[in-house]
């Protein structure tokens, strides 16, 4: 039986729009075994105080599965899916549940610096002591050295540590360590109303603040069985596409800067700045933080907002051919670098290697617009760059169509103080974001926002291994690896 069939055979808890099936321990183990040799994507793995939850996707088919934690243990998924190990380490650090038979039991978020252990457990423990400096898997061979990069970088970057094991200039293995930016966001969100908690969601990852807020709003609205008004849904899409263009321009600019291509860096920075200024005029904030809230949007678009956005979009459309021309040397530099193929993590990385998943295909607002998905096949850093440029062009088209046909009506609805459980998703500049939450009389009882970065880091590590040390920075930037969003 496939993993999804095994899950569907179990009884379901009410969770909208995708039910959550609660599996008995043996069934969960059977699901784990089935995952070892099928192509179902593991979108996320998280916990609450009693259960561990997994979110899986096969095509557009999404399903959630849960297993009860008994005596602090649950059967691991990392034995079948190595990428699940980081989720399991995160679950242990936050809730104290241990993955039985897991492939990696090192700490992830908890670096031994917190005043307590397992902060989301009903009974947090005493701090476990220092784990710095971290232990990395090493190769005990002659001539092999370790190169530590980060967590504090020379450039203006997020804090992440990348440990390269290299022989000469050749990288044999790359291993990331994150958790530096852990801010205790989940503990801060618990017990608050979704409207209040939206402020934390907006600050999970600023470059994807709109996308995270939209995914969270979708999850909340699904849990309560309500829908945002059509005008709010359209404005959210306007902001999401605007954010995508600005984010892609930032990523292109950073790559140009790292490659020493000043004309492209300047051009991308200029277009990005014009977009951010238009966002400030239209929505009151350059990054559009706190503009999307559960139930709708915080405020309607400013009276001259649509005109400002149109101006910025027209300027960007006019500049696209020259951007494309200036990108040629960058594409030459990135050609063949960091190939990621044979798996579909979705997002830019996935769509650079074939028809990758796009969470917008699940959003009815985009149904009428039609997603012209740019298709690349090479899966290298250059393909990822081309996907970004093609997506900017596609977002321009959608943004214009959305602005020209903004539905009239209210921009938000009041949320009932009810109980329920929901899952929401949105496509960020990197890929799909999945949010799950359970509401208890209008307050958040449990929540987990799953950033696209969880899927990207393991793939980037594999893509970096085998290449020369000098390419590491370009591959890292081409994957646009985040930290804050998955450090929680």
């Amino acid at each position: 039986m496939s993993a999804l069939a095994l899950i569907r055979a179990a009884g379901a808890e009410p969770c909208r729009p995708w039910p959550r099936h609660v599996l008995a321990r043996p069934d969960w183990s059977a699901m784990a075994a089935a995952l070892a040799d099928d192509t179902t994507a593991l979108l996320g793995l998280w916990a609450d105080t009693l259960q561990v939850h997994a979110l899986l996707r096969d095509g557009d088919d999404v399903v959630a599965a849960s297993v009860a934690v008994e005596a602090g243990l649950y059967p691991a998924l990392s034995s079948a899916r190595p990428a699940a190990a980081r989720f399991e380490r995160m679950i242990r650090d936050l809730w104290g549940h241990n993955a039985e038979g897991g492939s990696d039991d090192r700490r992830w978020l908890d670096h031994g610096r917190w005043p307590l252990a397992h902060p989301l457990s009903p009974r947090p423990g005493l701090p476990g002591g220092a784990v710095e400096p971290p232990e990395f898997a090493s190769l005990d061979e002659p001539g092999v050295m370790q190169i530590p990069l980060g967590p504090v970088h020379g450039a203006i970057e997020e804090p992440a540590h990348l440990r390269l094991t290299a022989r000469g200039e050749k990288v044999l293995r790359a291993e990331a360590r994150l958790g530096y930016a852990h801010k205790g966001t989940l503990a801060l969100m618990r017990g608050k109303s979704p409207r209040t908690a939206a402020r934390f969601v907006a600050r999970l990852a600023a470059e994807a603040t709109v996308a995270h807020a939209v995914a969270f709003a979708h999850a909340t609205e699904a849990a309560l069985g309500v829908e945002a008004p059509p005008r709010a849904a359209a404005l959210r899409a306007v902001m999401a596409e605007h954010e995508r263009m600005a984010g892609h321009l930032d990523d292109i600019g950073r790559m140009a800067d790292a490659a020493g291509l000043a004309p492209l860096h300047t051009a991308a920075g200029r277009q990005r700045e014009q977009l951010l200024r238009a966002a400030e005029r239209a929505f009151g904030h350059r990054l559009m933080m706190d503009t999307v809230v559960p139930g709708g949007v915080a405020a309607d678009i400013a009276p001259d907002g649509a005109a400002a956005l149109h101006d910025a979009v027209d300027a960007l459309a006019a500049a696209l051919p020259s951007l494309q021309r200036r990108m040629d040397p960058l594409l030459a530099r990135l050609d063949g670098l960091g190939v990621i193929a044979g798996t579909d993590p979705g997002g830019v990385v996935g769509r650079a290697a074939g028809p990758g998943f796009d969470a917008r295909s699940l959003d009815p607002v985009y149904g009428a617009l039609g997603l012209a998905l740019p298709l690349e096949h090479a899966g290298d850093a250059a393909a990822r760059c081309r996907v970004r440029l093609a997506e900017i062009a596609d977002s321009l088209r959608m943004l214009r169509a959305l602005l020209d046909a903004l539905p009239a009506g209210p921009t938000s609805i009041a949320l009932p103080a009810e109980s329920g459980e929901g899952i929401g998703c949105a496509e960020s500049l990197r890929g799909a974001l999945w949010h799950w939450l359970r509401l208890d009389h209008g307050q958040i009882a449990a929540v987990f926002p799953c950033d696209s970065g969880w899927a990207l880091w393991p793939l980037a590590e594999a893509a970096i291994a085998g290449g020369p040390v000098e390419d590491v920075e370009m591959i890292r930037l081409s994957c646009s690896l985040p930290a804050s969003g998955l450090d929680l």
Partner: protein
Amino acid sequence: MQPARVGVGPVIRPWRRPSLAEPAGPVDAATTASLAARLEAASQTRLGHSLAIRHVNTGSCNGCEVELRALRNVFYDLERFGLRFVESPRHADVLLVTGPLTRNLREALEAAWDATPEPKWVVAVGDCAVDGGVFKGSYAVLGGTGASVPVDLTISGCPPTPARLLAGLRALLEANTR
């Protein structure tokens, strides 16, 4: 040695496109005055008329970072004021700190501070670095840069706009060159 040949080059067209750089604008007098008082004791000759800035991320959501990167675009172009980002704290005059200071990054900030030569200035950028911002009170954060190292200047905002960042940094520069 052959003299350089003077030939007829391409005709230079008049440069008609106006500069995109923001007008310099006023600097907050109160900030300047308070900083000037502090800086008077230090030798200005050692700092000269430029400042080398090292960014230290102490757990930011990346919002301050994207706006700091914008300081290098053609609209703000901070290098025209003699301000520049450097890669090592050992080359820095200013530590520009973002984030609520997570417990996991406290040592990294202190190591950067220790490595920065005197005289040095610490600028806390963004509401998080000022006092922890929305993350204040969390078990995982210490609540702002000041919980670990002495802060000389704060620039609030979530995130502060590049214009605001530039005004704050220029106040530091002006106080320094007085």
